[in-house]
């Protein structure tokens, strides 16, 4: 089979052979992908400085919006740009910024020109040092009326990060046990034992 040290178990893959490490040209060519640029331009044209285009990469456009604008931007994405479902909704905890980010990855089944595209819509909620999930300032408007498919994803983020989604019809626990009384476990201050 293969040569030298490839047979080591994965956990100890620390081959010291930096010369063969191929690092492709990380520098992006200045020319942004045209189609993706078009999507970003349409959003900027509509919302101006209220949104921030974080990046435009092949097949991926990311926009950051404030929590007050997220519903309006999401409606625009659905009604005008034809993004019709959420592939994934992720929470990311940023204790140093005192914020919790919620990232929606939106895709489209109906518009064939968008089938490769994922639009990343990110917004941030205020983070509490001592969370009381549901009863503190960590709140965001729910996108469930706009994208039906976020229902279970938002429930998961509520229990894992403590972000309460206002307007969500069913803000119950989904995966965690009913008697879980600790911190929301995917927050950075919830530490795994021994780590």
């Amino acid at each position, binding site marked *: 089979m*293969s040569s030298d040290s*490839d047979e080591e178990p*994965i*956990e100890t*893959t*620390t*081959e*010291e*052979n930096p010369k063969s*490490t*191929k*690092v*492709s040209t*990380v520098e992006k060519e200045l020319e942004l992908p045209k189609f993706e640029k078009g999507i970003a331009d349409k959003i900027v044209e509509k919302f101006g400085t209220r949104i921030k285009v974080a990046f435009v990469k092949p*097949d*991926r456009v*990311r926009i950051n919006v404030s929590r007050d604008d997220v519903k309006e931007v999401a409606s625009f994405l659905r009604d005008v740009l034809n993004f*019709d*479902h959420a*592939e*994934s909704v*992720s929470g*990311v905890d940023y204790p140093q910024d005192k914020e919790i980010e919620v*990232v929606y*990855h939106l895709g489209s*089944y*109906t518009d064939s020109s968008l*089938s*490769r595209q*994922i639009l*990343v819509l990110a917004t941030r909620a205020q983070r509490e040092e*001592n*969370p*009381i*999930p*549901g*009863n503190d300032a960590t709140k965001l408007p729910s996108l469930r009326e706009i*994208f*039906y*498919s*976020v*229902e*279970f*994803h938002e429930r*998961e983020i509520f229990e894992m990060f403590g972000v309460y989604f206002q307007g969500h019809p069913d*803000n*119950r*626990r*989904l*995966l*965690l*046990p*009913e*008697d*879980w*009384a600790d911190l929301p*476990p*995917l927050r950075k201050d919830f530490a*795994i034992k021994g*780590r």
Partner: protein
Amino acid sequence: MKMNTELPPGLALQKVDERIMTLNVGPQHPGSGHMRIIVQIDGDFIVACDPDPGYVHRGEEKMAEYRNYITNIPHLERPVIHDSCNILYPYVLGVEELLGIEVPERAKYIRVIAAELNRCVYTMYWLAIYGIFLGHSTMFMWPAGDRELLIDLLEKMTGARVTHAHFVPGGVRNDLPPNFEDVCLRQVNYFEKRIKEYAAVFYDNPILIARTANTGVLSREDAIRLGTTGSVLRASGVDYDIRKKEPYDVYEELDFQTNVLKEGDSYARSKIPWLDMMESCRIIRHALQKMPKSGSVRVKLKPNPKGGDASVYKRVESGRGSLGCYIVSDKKPEPYRVKLSVPSFRNLIALPYLLKGEKLGNMPSVYWSLNYWPVEADR
């Protein structure tokens, strides 16, 4: 730290009148997998359903934040051990983009072959359980036996029957064993011949059709609205397969088609994975033919590689549908956040819609036709 007590703890059941009975199916019920399905029934008919997953939640995403990019591999495949290549695939593709690694051509073909073999192994397992759910014991025995053909191939290829941990950033862990191509071709051809025989005993069986046709119908609009994926979506008439729509590795160069059915019922949903297996056989044969006969299969990485200050979202078509991985990196050897957007979790949202108005006896067949794997949904 106390949780808010005003919110209903766990499952809040709806107010019901005397006619309606609430049943807990699972989590130790053979008809529910590792989850609980709360159904409210009026006589024999389901009026409401509330899926309650989480019994096999293992915190994979949390664990991933404590391990570096390479040591994450063996545990991230655990949610679906019999489809382990496909669940690792988006993670590995994402790490490659973060670290800027070019994968050798031969490794890309080996990955595609492993992923397609794994898709068949997963689907055979799923089909066996589907058979037993319907009380069709032949359909349990046959797939469970025929699946060994492909498990043997994967064992030759990776050294493990399940939990292969074969994909690593930069390629695959090891090259194919000598003479693998011939053995693989022979086994896959035989496998294809075998699964075609399932038509006579299972898919064309009038009893099966009577039990599953027109039950749990999901319309095209609802399939899109609910954001379902994979076989559920394609059984409802939406032609969306990541391998075609956003090809990764070498899928662009391979010859295959996607299967779409219009009915959207349990029968169509259970037929799509079977049809997909035949396409997988085609892909494997074509990939064996086009694969470079020699060459490197793995780029060596620096110890403890660090990603930049970036995030990446990659997705692949797994045995159950689109499987995405969102990785946030913050210039450390460990990822800042790993999110697996798994098809089982995405398809689960359809269950209450499908079961409403169904007979209770149809619940197992409708539920399992979602191509659902509870352990994956919980992560």
